[in-house]
């Protein structure tokens, strides 16, 4: 019997023929979602439950003197108003740094910061009551500019820290001075990128249901149930085992519900804890946009040098992230941006400095790509400019410097295998007709409508950052009738891991019928599987499933071998058909019944601790990630020089993401990320007023792509550069296509206009003034 996870992972890694894996099997959740039977958090609301909303601060920076609400409680329909005073445990929910209260205490640090939970009988009541909570404050001067905040000592967002710099990162590799002295050309620029709102169609909500003995169940819009469990327990001062979190279907996450999910859960739990009744806390769209963290806004200074033959000699980069009022996951985002700042290229000399800076704005947080789209935007604009100066085709210059197996990253990590980006980009160049189109558009650069074609690549380390441990886990149990229950903490946020790829993995490994597999997902009843973020749902997140299923398969094989006195190699199990040697044939269900009657253990956990190396934070050198996913895209745009309107006509993606478990499902992730990346680059822009308020906190004024803006998306090219620890060699994919989009569109627009774009978003007015510059 084989129970060793490494041996199990290896067995399926080297598999060569597949039954379910690699097939575009239909997702099992689609039909029930279309038919309206799928349940989201608010759908669990029943008559008689209480409702709650949050009262928000309407000032960006202030010291709190008093929060008054007694007048509101005179209304019998208002049941309770809860503030920091009512928190029985700790009022501390910062993820990276303990700097954030669940409900404002002593200070307000951004406009929209939650101050109180108002609980009442019906939505009308709480909607008006939240406006009546009075916050008596001493206003403080506010900081909105990250570069200014870095320098100031007189205004501090967090006084105790003595600076507004929350976190720093650095990379020191080789000697940049000598690197630049060897360069024949040097390009230097400052790039700016902006916040992005997640705008998942389902706003945040949590339904908290008190249970016996102070236990509590919270059904929440959350990407990591076990983190929610930890936060709820901490806030209420009860053991984690008393808290059960359930993530039903989630109406989009994109990282936003990874940050905000546990906090919504904790605020709802606080209300239910005090009222001893079920309470549904919901955010309106405006609440959602004011409260939850956004994609990083950055200023990136980037200097690169290369020799005449196109080889990069050095980069020097300063990255400043505006983390807003709280660090949230800002330090992790900055860390990732720093370690990816070179792009997937070999760079012998690098000096990178990163700063995560507090301001009095909405916090920065997790969003598809996690610090990478902004830094790749800068890195890839640099590559285009180097190519231009050196007289290289942009793709050729990239290929010259591209990481390949046995190359070293800027953190000095040697990548032995699973580096397929070189092949992916080469294929993309030929399949997208890159060279022909590039020349064609250059030659016709005149008239009102101009076209351009741009390329960008991206890479993304799999699993959580640094040498921080990452693991996978799951529990599988087979019932007497042969049906298989798989418990995973991975959540269904639209990506399709529990609803397709996990089922495929289990059916493949157990050899059972696909329909027999039931995935119980998104619950703390499952072992802690880590979060559904960092593109890990079907990669790291599913390793545990593979291991647990592999154990059971091995037990069944051992049992059959002994029972029928055959060699294990003579046993075949696939799609519910079991063949033992040349004499015995049986159905999966018969095998399970037999195994039960003979006392075979058909329950298994699949814990796997991902091996990691060491990392030296002083010099930013060492093992950063166990593997990288890669992508390249070519984008074509058309710009109307009269209006500044940019249309993305076509996008052609190529990915090196290891084994593709479900090709069609992966393509939809790619398409979705392309559409979202296009929105970010061209139209989405949060407007923050003089007093720190997000003015366009609704979907009328914050415009996201519709069916109209969607470009033609060509069939994705896959290079299956298997990762030794991924299930069947799979790497992460969910975030990938977002990462190169800003760069690809900006490079295409730069190509169309013959001028360099360094700042996002490329809204009408900005592009219009660029076209003026280009015709000057």
């Amino acid at each position, binding site marked *: 019997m084989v129970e060793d996870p490494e041996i199990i992972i290896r067995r399926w890694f080297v598999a060569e023929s597949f039954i379910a894996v690699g097939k575009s099997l239909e997702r099992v959740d689609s039909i029930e979602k279309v038919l309206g039977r799928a349940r989201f958090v608010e759908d669990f609301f029943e008559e008689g439950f209480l409702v709650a909303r949050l009262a928000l601060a309407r000032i960006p920076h202030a010291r709190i003197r008093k929060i008054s609400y007694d007048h509101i409680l005179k209304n019998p329909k208002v049941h309770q108003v809860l503030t920091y005073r009512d928190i029985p445990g700790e009022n501390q929910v910062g993820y990276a740094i303990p700097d954030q209260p669940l409900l404002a205490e002593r200070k307000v640090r951004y406009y929209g910061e939650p101050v109180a939970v108002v609980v009442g009988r019906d*939505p009308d009541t709480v909607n008006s009551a939240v406006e009546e909570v009075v916050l008596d404050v001493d206003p403080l001067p506010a900081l909105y500019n990250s570069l200014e905040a870095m320098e100031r000592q007189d205004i501090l967002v967090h006084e105790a820290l003595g600076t507004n710099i929350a976190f720093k990162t650095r990379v020191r590799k080789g000697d940049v001075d000598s690197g630049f002295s060897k360069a024949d050309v040097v390009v230097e620029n400052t790039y700016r990128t902006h916040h992005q709102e997640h705008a998942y169609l389902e706003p945040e909500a949590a339904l908290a249901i008190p249970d016996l003995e102070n236990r509590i169940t919270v059904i929440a819009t959350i990407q990591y149930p076990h983190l929610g469990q930890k936060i709820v327990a901490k806030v209420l001062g009860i053991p984690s085992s008393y808290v059960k979190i359930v993530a039903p279907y989630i109406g989009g996450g994109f990282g936003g519900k990874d940050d905000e999910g546990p906090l919504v859960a904790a605020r709802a739990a606080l209300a239910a804890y005090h009222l001893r009744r079920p309470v549904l806390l919901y955010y309106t769209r405006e609440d959602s946009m004011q409260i939850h963290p956004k994609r990083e806004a950055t200023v990136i200074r980037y200097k690169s040098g290369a020799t005449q033959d196109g080889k990069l000699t050095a980069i020097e980069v300063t990255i400043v992230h505006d983390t807003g009022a709280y660090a949230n996951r800002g330090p992790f985002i900055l860390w990732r941006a720093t370690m990816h700042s070179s792009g997937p290229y070999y760079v012998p000399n690098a000096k990178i400095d990163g700063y995560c800076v507090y301001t009095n704005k909405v916090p920065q947080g997790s969003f598809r790509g996690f610090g990478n789209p902004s830094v790749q935007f800068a890195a890839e604009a640099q590559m285009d400019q180097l190519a231009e100066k050196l007289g290289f085709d942009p793709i050729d210059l990239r290929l010259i410097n591209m990481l390949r197996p046995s190359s070293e990253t800027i953190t000095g990590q040697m990548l032995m295998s699973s580096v397929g980006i070189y092949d992916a980009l080469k294929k993309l160049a030929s399949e997208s007709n890159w060279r022909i189109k590039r020349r064609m558009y250059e030659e016709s650069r005149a008239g009102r409508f101009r076209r351009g074609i741009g390329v960008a690549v991206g890479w993304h380390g799999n699993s959580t950052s640094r040498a921080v441990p990452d693991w996978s886990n799951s529990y599988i149990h087979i019932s007497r009738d042969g049906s298989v229950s798989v418990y995973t903490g991975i959540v269904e946020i639209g990506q399709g891991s529990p609803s397709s790829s996990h089922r495929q993995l289990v059916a493949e490994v157990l050899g059972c019928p696909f329909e027999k597999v039931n995935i119980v997902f998104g619950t703390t009843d499952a072992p802690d599987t880590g979060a559904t973020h960092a593109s890990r749902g079907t990669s790291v997140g599913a390793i545990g499933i593979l291991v647990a299923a592999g154990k059971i398969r091995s037990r069944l094989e051992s049992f059959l071998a002994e029972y029928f006195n055959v060699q294990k190699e003579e046993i075949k199990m696939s799609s519910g058909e079991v063949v033992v040697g040349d004499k015995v044939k049986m159905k999966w269900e018969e095998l399970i019944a037999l195994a039960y009657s003979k006392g075979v253990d058909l329950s298994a956990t699949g814990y796997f601790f991902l091996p990691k190396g060491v990392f030296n934070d002083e010099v930013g050198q060492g093992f950063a990630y166990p593997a990288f996913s890669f992508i390249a895209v070519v984008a074509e745009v058309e710009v109307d020089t009269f209006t500044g309107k940019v249309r993305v006509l076509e996008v052609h993606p190529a990915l090196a993401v290891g084994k593709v478990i479900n090709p069609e499902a992966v393509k939809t992730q790619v398409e979705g990320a*392309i559409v979202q990346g296009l929105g970010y680059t061209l139209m989405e822009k949060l407007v923050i007023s003089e007093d720190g308020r997000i003015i366009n906190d609704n979907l009328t004024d914050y415009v996201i792509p519709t069916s109209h803006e969607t470009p033609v998306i060509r069939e994705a090219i896959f290079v299956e550069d298997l990762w030794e620890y991924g299930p069947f060699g799979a790497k992460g994919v969910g975030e990938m296509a977002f990462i190169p989009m800003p760069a690809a569109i900006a490079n295409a627009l730069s190509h169309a206009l013959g001028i360099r774009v360094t700042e996002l978003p490329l809204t009408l007015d900005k592009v219009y003034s660029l076209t003026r510059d280009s015709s000057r």
Partner: protein
Amino acid sequence: MRVVFTLNGRVVEVDVEPNEVLLDTLRLRLGIKSVKRGCERGECGACTVLVSNVPVVSCLLLTVQINGSNIVTVEGLQSDDLFMELASEFSKSFAVQCGYCSPAMALTSYAFIKKALENSLKPSREDIAKAIEGNLCRCGTYPRVLMAIEKVLERRTQVR
């Protein structure tokens, strides 16, 4: 205030507040959960219902306004051939990700297909994109939704 209307083929009578929107009446009083709250200002389309076969956002409709109307949600189409064909095409085309927009997206698509078939129209891809432009999908399923609608239209026009 008393309001009487037809919901999914059945006459219902509810007593509502004068300022109550249909979205709340459906979700909170009548147990219709396919109709989703997304923005409450007519922008996202997640709360779409059919009023006399026309897609309308229920968050901007006062329930008192629909007295006497005929309202259909996906709950009422689960034995409708065309709708079920469309639903299965959504699934086959991978037009569903998180699914929050899906019932509304499917309703809008259904109304569009029905109208096109009834009037023997041959809509272009752009016409279809226009038909669903009021339904936002942050997961970006648009290309797949267009594909699903095209497939159903194609099949249904061939049959005739």
